[in-house]
């Protein structure tokens, strides 16, 4: 295997509604910033890969227009995934592993504000049995939360504690959208949004984007004083049908964590793609994290949840703390689909 590292990152200030900018205007400054930080010249990237969704943009092949933010002339080697940017990073990592690239630019973005996001996400369900019912992402998450509470995996109080911790942690994150929270006991007094979920249990609707630069081996060492090496990366999916899954556990995370080597050393921080509070205990358990592992010091998706970017941002947050020397080893998780269906796990490490 080739050594591959994240050598530079950038992200937007995440907001509820970036009404006055289109997707190109949203992501272009972030791409510019990450290119400048990386030290790689704009036309020297061997590969470019992005993640976004036509269902959010409201038009087919919407990613093509965003290539204007990269500059695709003279022609570049480029690809796109209709998935969170964490999977665009995975594709770029594979490209580098196969020897077809030494550097890659990866970015992803989403503007969820123009539509009714929970309803848009109902289109991810099985088209025969589930999609005709139009269950929203919140409806499905509420079912999963009930199952998890019944199974003793979490409780409404524990979920309020997670919401409080996440949003107060985000006060130190200049890019976060929600950075304050009432005390957990006060949160418990609020009305249900979708019993057993209250509003604080749900990640906000967010517009935003993120970009990273990957480089291999000595190229990474020459460009970055402390690269965040991807020591393991793997993604697995549970079945599509919600009714055949045990929603209180995550077999796909457990397998991906094993393949990525999460347990091969101590984990200092974990950035988890928790779109709902009850996801955290399910993921903690499936990852086998020790009780003292700090989860989502950035605030996580509960503090800023740009669709298609929130997973890649988890890798950025771990990488930033490795770049700065604050930590030496962390795990990043990204998810796609309903109720943690598809999961990507990456182990990042600093050297020395």
């Amino acid at each position, binding site marked *: 295997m080739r050594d591959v590292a994240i050598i530079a990152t950038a992200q937007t200030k995440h907001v509820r509604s970036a*009404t*006055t*900018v289109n997707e190109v*205007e949203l992501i272009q400054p972030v791409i510019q910033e990450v290119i400048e930080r990386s030290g790689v010249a704009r036309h020297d990237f061997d590969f470019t890969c992005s993640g976004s969704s036509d*269902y959010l943009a*409201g038009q087919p092949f919407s990613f093509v227009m965003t290539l204007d933010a990269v500059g695709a002339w003279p022609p570049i080697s480029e690809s796109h995934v209709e998935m969170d940017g964490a999977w665009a990073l995975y594709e770029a990592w594979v490209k580098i592993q196969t020897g077809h690239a030494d550097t890659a630019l990866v970015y992803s973005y989403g503007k969820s504000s*123009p*539509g*009714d996001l*929970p*309803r*848009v996400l109902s*289109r991810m369900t099985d*088209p*025969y*049995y*589930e*999609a*005709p*019912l*139009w*269950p*929203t992402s919140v*409806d*499905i998450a*509420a*079912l999963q*939360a*009930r*199952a998890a509470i*019944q199974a003793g995996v979490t409780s409404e109080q524990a979920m309020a504690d997670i919401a409080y911790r996440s949003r107060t942690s985000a006060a130190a994150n200049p890019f976060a959208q929600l950075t304050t929270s009432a005390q957990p006991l006060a949160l418990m007094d609020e009305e*249900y*949004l*979708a*019993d*057993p*979920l209250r509003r604080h249990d749900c990640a906000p609707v967010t517009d935003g984007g993120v970009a990273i630069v990957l480089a291999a081996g000595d190229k990474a060492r020459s460009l970055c004083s402390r690269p965040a090496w991807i020591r393991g990366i793997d993604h697995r999916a549970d*079945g599509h*049908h*919600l*009714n*055949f899954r045990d929603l209180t556990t995550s077999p796909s995370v457990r397998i991906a964590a094993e393949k990525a080597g999460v347990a091969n050393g101590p984990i200092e921080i974990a950035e988890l793609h928790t779109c709902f509070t009850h996801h955290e205990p399910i993921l903690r358990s499936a990852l086998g994290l020790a009780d003292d592992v700090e989860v989502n010091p950035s605030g996580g998706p509960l503090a800023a949840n740009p669709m298609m970017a929130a997973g890649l941002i988890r890798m950025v947050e771990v990488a930033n703390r490795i770049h700065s020397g604050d930590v030496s080893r962390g795990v990043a998780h990204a998810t796609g689909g309903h109720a943690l269906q598809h999961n990507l796990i990456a182990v990042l490490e600093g050297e020395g």
Partner: protein
Amino acid sequence: MPEEATTSGEEDVLRAPLVLEYPFKRTTGPVIGAFLTALREGRFIGIEDDQGKVLCPPVEYDPASGASLTKLVPVGSEGEVLFWSWNQSVRDGQPLDHPFAWAMVKLDGADTPMMHAVDAPHEVMVTGLRVRAKFAEERIGSMDDLLCFEPVS
């Protein structure tokens, strides 16, 4: 003088409706088609997986092993709520036009639950609740033939 385009303020932003659709037609095949045909007749069928468990609604392939499944079996129209959530803000296209519970309902004779709506007051909803299918009067062989589940009184 043509008006100059601007992005300076919210009031200047052009807006267009976002029409959400999934404009593809699919064939239902021998298993899902059989389930929908049974719904038209006001009854349920499931399918045995390679461990002999009955999956309802049925699928063509074993979710665990991927084995091809063919043995369709009848399943009851009453069942039990395994877990549920409350839907206070009903959206277009959902089974009912007033607040209802989403539930995983395990029908009698099935080993797996199906997700659907339960039409019952919030305070009645409880895990273990016995429910019965309510079918549409005019049925055409689609998921819409099953309106919802109701508590067994």
